[in-house]
């Protein structure tokens, strides 16, 4: 039987607020265990939560950026369960009345455009972290808890089960991530867990309307792993169904090393979280004026930017998509294109050279010593013929490493392109004189040797000779 895959994603995004969701503790990480804590986020007796306004604003921003309705009134609820990383014995979350409802994202997978519905976005606090090895003594005889992360604000973004394959899931996740990073709500780092994705995957015979039993996949910390885990799960479920078996509703963890999903014990499903409205917090009322202000302050979003890049700079769709996928990269491109008015060339250099230098990590853009004006300056020199393309790559790498301007590096290292005929003529004559055998073979009809001569000349001039001129003079002399 042929099956159709049904996927819905639940994404947890850690918000870039300075302080936690219900107290004034800082959210920065990498600090010693339990230093970013206070009586409130440690859940000590008598403490009460006070909502972080910035977190609410971020939630509104996320909702508006995904075309959600912002609820005039939303309610925080307690999700009750026992675990050592949960100091109050409950997590403050939103349940029946979340802050954002009914949005959507437009994705493109395998060249097909599709709109994926967002069920809801709600706010909640993160738990602490269990450590099973002592950070200093390495002892493993007990478990420890670090509450630095406890109480940091999260958005849970829940999609409709409208994706039909791993490519769509990844496209959705990439689009969502781009929006969250664009709107400066989340840093989008999946490896470090500031963006986490769980996937609900089920199969149903093609043509059947009713959903099959779903399995929740967790622990996929990259786009690649999301794709692999879903592919694995489709194969696994297909095999079970083909054998006449039944899918069990359960949570499975992706093991990236083994490349398979493994069943977590079914206890999770037995949980009754006993949600009820948190009596310590008043219903959250968001006034229209607030929503309108946030709407006005929304930055241009990836889709709109891509369209504009194609129209304004005449960029191909692919280039516009790559550049617009990151706000930092897009800004870099635009500043540079304003100084060097050949957008396609700028786009090529940004996408090939600059992205390589920052290792595809847009978070490194602000700290990059290579600025748009440097790239524009180098491109002008290439255009004028004073710098060869290959030398320009080296120069830009040096700018990136040192922060000096391209001009300074070119001067200091004598990298300026040799374009005057006299010098090039001499270099050509020297190579012809030094390689009489090759000259004979060339003259006998071996045209391919022209490349050999060019190479020798470039080598002798340290790559600085103007290649067009070299070609021209070589042909003449030979």
């Amino acid at each position: 039987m042929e099956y159709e895959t049904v996927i819905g994603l639940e994404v947890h995004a850690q918000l870039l607020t300075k302080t936690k969701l219900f107290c004034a503790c800082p959210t920065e990480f990498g600090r010693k265990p339990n230093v970013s804590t206070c009586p409130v986020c440690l859940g000590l007796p008598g403490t009460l939560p006070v909502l972080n306004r910035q977190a609410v604003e971020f939630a509104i921003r996320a909702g508006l950026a995904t075309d959600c309705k912002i609820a005039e009134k939303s309610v925080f609820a307690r999700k009750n369960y026992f675990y050592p990383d949960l100091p109050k014995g409950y997590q403050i979350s939103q349940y029946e009345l979340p802050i954002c409802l009914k949005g959507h994202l437009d994705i493109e997978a395998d060249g097909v455009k599709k709109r994926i519905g967002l069920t809801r976005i709600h706010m909640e606090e993160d738990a602490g972290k269990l450590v099973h090895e002592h950070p200093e003594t390495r002892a493993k005889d007990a478990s420890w808890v670090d509450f630095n992360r406890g109480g940091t604000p999260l958005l849970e973004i829940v999609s409709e089960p409208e994706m039909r394959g791993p490519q769509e899931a990844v496209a959705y996740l990439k689009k969502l991530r781009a929006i969250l990073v664009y709107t400066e709500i989340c840093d989008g780092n999946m490896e470090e867990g500031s963006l986490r994705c769980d996937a609900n995957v089920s199969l149903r015979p093609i043509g059947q309307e009713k959903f099959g039993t779903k399995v929740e996949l967790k622990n996929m910390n990259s786009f690649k792993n999301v794709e692999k885990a879903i592919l694995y799960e489709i194969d696994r479920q297909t095999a079970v169904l083909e054998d006449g078996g039944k899918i069990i509703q359960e949570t499975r963890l992706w093991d990236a090393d083994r490349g398979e999903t493994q069943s977590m014990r079914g206890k999770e499903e037995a949980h009754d979280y006993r949600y009820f409205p948190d009596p310590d917090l008043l219903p959250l009322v968001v006034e229209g004026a607030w929503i309108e202000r946030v709407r006005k302050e929304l930055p241009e979003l990836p889709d709109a930017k891509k369209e504009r890049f194609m129209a304004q700079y005449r960029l191909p769709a692919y280039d516009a998509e790559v550049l617009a996928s990151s706000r930092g990269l897009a800004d870099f491109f635009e500043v540079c294109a304003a100084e060097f008015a050949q957008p396609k060339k700028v786009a090529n250099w940004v996408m090939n050279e600059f992205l390589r230098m920052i290792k595809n990590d847009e978070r490194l853009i602000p700290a990059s010593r290579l600025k748009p004006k440097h790239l524009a300056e180098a491109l002008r020199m290439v255009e004028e013929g004073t710098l060869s393309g290959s030398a320009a790559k080296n120069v830009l790498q040096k700018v990136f490493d040192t922060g000096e301007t391209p001009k300074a590096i070119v001067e200091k290292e004598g990298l300026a392109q040799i374009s005057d005929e006299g010098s090039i003529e001499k270099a050509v004559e020297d190579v012809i004189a030094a390689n009489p055998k090759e000259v004979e073979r060339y003259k006998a009809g071996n045209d391919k040797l022209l490349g050999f001569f060019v190479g020798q000349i470039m080598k002798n001039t340290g790559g600085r000779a103007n290649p067009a001129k070299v070609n021209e003079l070589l042909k003449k002399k030979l």
Partner: protein
Amino acid sequence: MQLYDLTIHELGDLLRQKKASSREITESVFRRIRAVEPRIRSYVTLTEELALQQAKRADEKIAKDVGAIHELPLRGIPIGIKDNFLTEGIKTTCSSKILHNYIPPYNGTAVKRLIDEGAVVVGKLNMDEFAMGSSNENSAIGVVRNPWDLERIPGGSSGGSAAAVAAGECIAATGTDTGGSIRLPAALTNLVGVKPTYGRVSRYGIVAFASSLDQVGPIAKDVTDAAILLKALAGHDPRDSTSLNVPVPDYTKTLVPDIKGWKIGIPKEYFIEGLDIEVKKAIDAAIGTVKRLGAECVEVTLPHTDYGVPTYYILATAEASSNLARYDGIRYGHRNRSVRELIPLYEKSRSDGFGAEVKRRIMLGTYVLSAGYYDAYYLRGQKARTLIRRDFEKAFERCDVILTPVSPTPAWKIGEKIDDPLKMYLSDIFTINVNLAGLPGMSLPCGFTEGGLPIGMQLIAKHFEEEKMLRVAYAYEQATEWHKRRPKL
């Protein structure tokens, strides 16, 4: 009369006239404690050293500026703190084994306000475990005895607070009231107890029992003292999202003995079968006094009164089951060290640590929130709560203040109701609905039984109209002598 017998405002006069020092008052209180505490058992922890330091500081400040006593009437006055108020560096047990060793790293807002006003902290007062109870018998520390009859309970859950004030073991005390826990013990010990409007006093630093019902308030010897303490406690706190940002009047300035033309509502549903005859007589007499003072008494109806107790025991236990989840043996408090695995550690620590009544309420609350039962219990409870609140709103269209009994009976014998939780729960029948409606309510002395047991009456006002209730109470108090009686110990 000894210093410990006096009220806050009487002691304020002595301090101002330099006829007594805070040190003398404090020492008088501690002498009294040494004399009667073995019989009463009001305290979980005494903080004599701290108290004497605070008294010394108060005396120094009074010496510098005598006039400031008007502004800071609590300066130098020994106050007892219920043991569910978090106190920095001072053990806070909630009279529970599970917190027997817990020393908080911070002061709650109420305690901070009292200390900032110069009050002297005598110690931490015994209570029903986690404020769950009406008799103070649910204490892991021990049963508190009623100073008016040592064979009887002082009421609960702020039983230690009431017994201590009545016995002269502190001048006034703080309490918390979730379903009557200030008013009931005040009524059974001839004291004035005020449960303010929900949101009037910060709950930050109070061990939560039922968050939507808990409220902090004073237990004192007369209405003026209660007003002084209430003023110090009340006010918006940014650390408590449910505390309202409304101005706090100077409650002592509203104490004028004039209620001519005021309308006092008498709800017919509160004069029911089961109401003790002597209590009924005392309340009827009080109604007579209020009329003689020129007030008009009108019958009002609160038709959903009967739903109060069941509604309360659904909502309060639901919240409690969640609020008490943090006592799990992981980070602080009692841990059973005989087990190493997580689930057994939870089970054993909590089984050891909580008493029977607390366990009963955790189980009840867990049940009413469970999948499949939530709609039938918790949601219905919320709806009933709305009906009860509307009853009061309607009744207040016809009157300024409502007058009722506090407890259906005077103080009962220790052990009398302890095996019958339902009977125990019914002792809060007249106080619980005030919490469900979020209204201010207070208890004040209005007579004695033939056997010499105190009887209290309850006044209830509209939200944030504590002033009206206090004014009626003051007028009544000025016309009567009940509040001047002290137990013989």
